C-alpha cells in the first residue's frame, strides 16, 4: 500500500511540474466547454433567401413581407431575373430562391390556382429540407389568409378542426445549450482521460524508465493504480470545474437529478475510460503511436456517441456500434440526470453496463501489460 503512495507522489509531481501540460489539461477543456456549446447550435434559422419577383404586385410583396417577418429567413436579395438568383445560390449568398411568376396576383384572382417556384441549395440536405418546409408552410398560411379574406366577403364554410397542443418537458425554453453542454463536458472528460492515461504509460516506455520500474519489487497492479489514480483525480477535477462552475455560472444549468448519482457514474466511467487508455498503451511503444491509436478510437467514439446526431436515426448495424461505445452511455446519463432528473432506478442498466466496460478494458489491459514478458 505504501508503495502506491510513493508512486502517486511521483506522478503528481511530474504532472504538476509539466508547465506545458497543465494549462492544456485544465484550461483547454474549459475554454472548449465555454466556446463549443455556443457554436453547436443545430436549430435552423437565418436561412438566406433571395426573391425573384416578376410580378411586383400587392400579393407578391405581401408574401415577401410575410417571409421576412417569420424570423427564420433573411432576405438577402430581391431581383427581377432568375439568373441572378441562380448565381446567388452558387456563391452561397442565398440558400433558397423563391421565384414569383409574372401575373401571380392576376392569375390567383382569376383562376384560383397559381404556382410558385422554389430553388433550394440542397448540398446540406437537412437544411434544404427544413428551409423548404418552412417556406411551404408560410405559403400555405398565405393562401389560407387569402381564403379567409374571400370567405369574409362571402359565406364561411364550417370545418372541424383538430386542435393540437404541444408542450416540451425538461427544457421548457427549448435551450439547445442545455442539451449540448452536458454532452460536450462528457466528451471532454473522455478525451482527457483516454489520451492522458495512454500517453503517460507509453512515455515511460519510450524513455526507458519502465525498465527501472520493472526490475523493482513494485507489483503490476500497484504500478497501474499509481498511474491511473492521478488521471482519475484530474478527470474528477476537470469535470467538477466544468459542471459546478462553467455549466452553472455561464450556462445556468443546475442538475435536476442527484449530483451524487452523477459523480458515482463519473467515478465508474473514468475507471472504464482510463482502462481503455491503459489498453492502448499496452499495444503501443511510442507516444506517436499511442496518440494515433487513441485518436482513431476517440474519433469513432465521438461520432458514434449520439453527441451530435441521433442514435435512433442510425441504421441497425450502426446502433450496435453506438451501444458498444462507452461514451454513449455517459452522455445519456449526463443528459438524463442533469436535464431530466433521472434516478438510480432509471439508470441502473447504465451502471451495470459501465461496470462491465470497466472490468473488460482493465482486465484486458492488465492481461496484456506484462511486467515480465
Amino acid at each position: 500500500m505504501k508503495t502506491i503512495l510513493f508512486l502517486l507522489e511521483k506522478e503528481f509531481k511530474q504532472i504538476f511540474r509539466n508547465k506545458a501540460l497543465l494549462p492544456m489539461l485544465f484550461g483547454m477543456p474549459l475554454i472548449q466547454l465555454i466556446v463549443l456549446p455556443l457554436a453547436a447550435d443545430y436549430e435552423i434559422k437565418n436561412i438566406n433567401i433571395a426573391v425573384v419577383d416578376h410580378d411586383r404586385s400587392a400579393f407578391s410583396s405581401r408574401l415577401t413581407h410575410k417571409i421576412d417577418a417569420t424570423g427564420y429567413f433573411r432576405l438577402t436579395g430581391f431581383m427581377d431575373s432568375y439568373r441572378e438568383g441562380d448565381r446567388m445560390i452558387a456563391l452561397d449568398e442565398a440558400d433558397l430562391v423563391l421565384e414569383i411568376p409574372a401575373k401571380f396576383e392576376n392569375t390567383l384572382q382569376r383562376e384560383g390556382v397559381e404556382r410558385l417556384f422554389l430553388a433550394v441549395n440542397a448540398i446540406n440536405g437537412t437544411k434544404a429540407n427544413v428551409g423548404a418546409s418552412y417556406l411551404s408552410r408560410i405559403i400555405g398560411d398565405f393562401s389560407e389568409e387569402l381564403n379567409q379574406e374571400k370567405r369574409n366577403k362571402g359565406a364561411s364554410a364550417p370545418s372541424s378542426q383538430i386542435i393540437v397542443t404541444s408542450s416540451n418537458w425538461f427544457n421548457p425554453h427549448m435551450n439547445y445549450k442545455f442539451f449540448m453542454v452536458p454532452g460536450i463536458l462528457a466528451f471532454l472528460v473522455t478525451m482527457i482521460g483516454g489520451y492522458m492515461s495512454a500517453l503517460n504509460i507509453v512515455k515511460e516506455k519510450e524513455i526507458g524508465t519502465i525498465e527501472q520500474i520493472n526490475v523493482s519489487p513494485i507489483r503490476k497492479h500497484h504500478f497501474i493504480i499509481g498511474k491511473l489514480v492521478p488521471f482519475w483525480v484530474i478527470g474528477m477535477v476537470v469535470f467538477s470545474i466544468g459542471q459546478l462552475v462553467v455549466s452553472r455560472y455561464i450556462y445556468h444549468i443546475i442538475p435536476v437529478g442527484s449530483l451524487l448519482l452523477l459523480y458515482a457514474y463519473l467515478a465508474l466511467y473514468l475507471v472504464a475510460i482510463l482502462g481503455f487508455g491503459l489498453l492502448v498503451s499496452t499495444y503501443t511503444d511510442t507516444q506517436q503511436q499511442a496518440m494515433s491509436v487513441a485518436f482513431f478510437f476517440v474519433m469513432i467514439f465521438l461520432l458514434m456517441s449520439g453527441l451530435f446526431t441521433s442514435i435512433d436515426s442510425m441504421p441497425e448495424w450502426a446502433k450496435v456500434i453506438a451501444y458498444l461505445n462507452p461514451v454513449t452511455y455517459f452522455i445519456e446519463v449526463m443528459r438524463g440526470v442533469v436535464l431530466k432528473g433521472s434516478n438510480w432506478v432509471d439508470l441502473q442498466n447504465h451502471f451495470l453496463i459501465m461496470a462491465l466496460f470497466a472490468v473488460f478494458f482493465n482486465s484486458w489491459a492488465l492481461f496484456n501489460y506484462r511486467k515480465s514478458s
Partner: protein
Amino acid sequence: MNATIKILLVQMKAFITKEFYHVFRDRKSLLLLFGLPIAQILLFGFALTNEIKNTKIAVYDQAGDRASKRLIQRVEASKYFEVAAMLHNPAEIEGHFKSGQARLVLVIPAQFEADLARQQEPTLQIITDGSDPNTANTITNYLNNIIQDFQTDQKGNLQVRPEVRIVPVMRMLYNPQLKGAPNFVPGVMSLVLLLICVMMTSISIVREKELGTMEVLLVSPFEPILVILSKAIPYLVLSLVNLTLILVLSVVLLEMPINGSLLLLFGISTIYIITSLSLGLLISSVTDSQQAAMLLSLMGMMLPTMLFTGFMFPIENMPIPLQVISHVVPARYYYVIVKAIMIKGLGLSAIWKETAILVGMTIFLLVVSWRKFKIRLE
C-alpha cells in the same frame, strides 16, 4: 552552382527517404493516417445523419376507438416514428422520458371519434422530451404534419374546397435526393487533411527534439530550412494520397459527383495541405514535448475545426465573436472551395477570394514559425 544543387537534391532525398521509413515502419500510426478517413467516410456515409427518423414515441390513447386507431396507424406508418409503447396512465409519461424509452408522447382524448363526428374540435396533446430541443421541435413538426394529413382525410367527406390555392414547385439543386454525402465529404476532407498535417508534422518534429536527434540533423551540413522541408514533404505526399483515397471512396461508395476540374481541386488542396503543414510547424516551434504538441493540435484543432468549418453546425447561428473566430480557421475556406468545385462545378473565378485567403494564411504562418524556429536555434 549546378553541382551544389545536385548535392542538395541527393541530401534531400536521403532525408525524405528517412522520413518515409519512419512513417511506414510505424503501422499503428498508419491506422490514423489511412484508417481514420476511411472510417469517417463510411460512418458519415452510412451511419450518421442529421435527419431525424425512427424516433421512439409512446401513445396514451384514452379513446381507443376507430379514429384513434387510424391516427396511430398513420403515425406508425411514417418513417419518422416508431410507436414503442402504449401507455395506460399519465403517470407513466415521465418514466418513459427519464429512461429514454420515448422522446415524445401523443395523448389522444377520450371520445376522439365522437367529437370528430360532431365537429367538437377534439384536442390532441403532444408532449416531448425537450432535453434535446432540436429533435423535440422537429418531431413535433413531423407529427403535426401527420395530424394535418389525417384531418384533411377526415374533411375529405365534407367537401370543403379552398377557393385560392398556391402550389409551390420545388427544385432541389445539386443534391436532389437530399443525401448527406455532398455536405460531409468536403467536411471530412478539410478535417482529415488538417489533422494529419498539423498533428503528424508537429509531433514528428517535436519527437526529434525530444530524442535529441534534431541536434544531429541541425549540425549536419544541411540548411535547417531543408530539414524542415524534408519533414514536410512526406506528409504532403501522404495527404495527397489520402485525398485521392477519400475522393475514390466518395465516388465509388457514396456516388458523389466531381463536377468541376479535378486538377483545380488537387491544386487548391495542395495549397490547403501546405497551410496545414505550416500550422504544424508553428506548433512544433512553440512546444517541447510530444504530449504538449499532441494536446495542442488535438484539443486546439480537432473540435474547433469540426465546428467552425460549418459542416456540422451552421456558422450563421453562432454568436458574432465566434463567427469572427471562424474566419481564422483555414478549414472553413477549404470547405467552401471543395463544395464549389466538386458539387457546384464552379471554376477559379468563383473561389479566388477563398484561395487568396488560404495563400495569405500560409505565408503568414510560415513567416511566424520560421522566426520562432530561428530564435530557438540561436
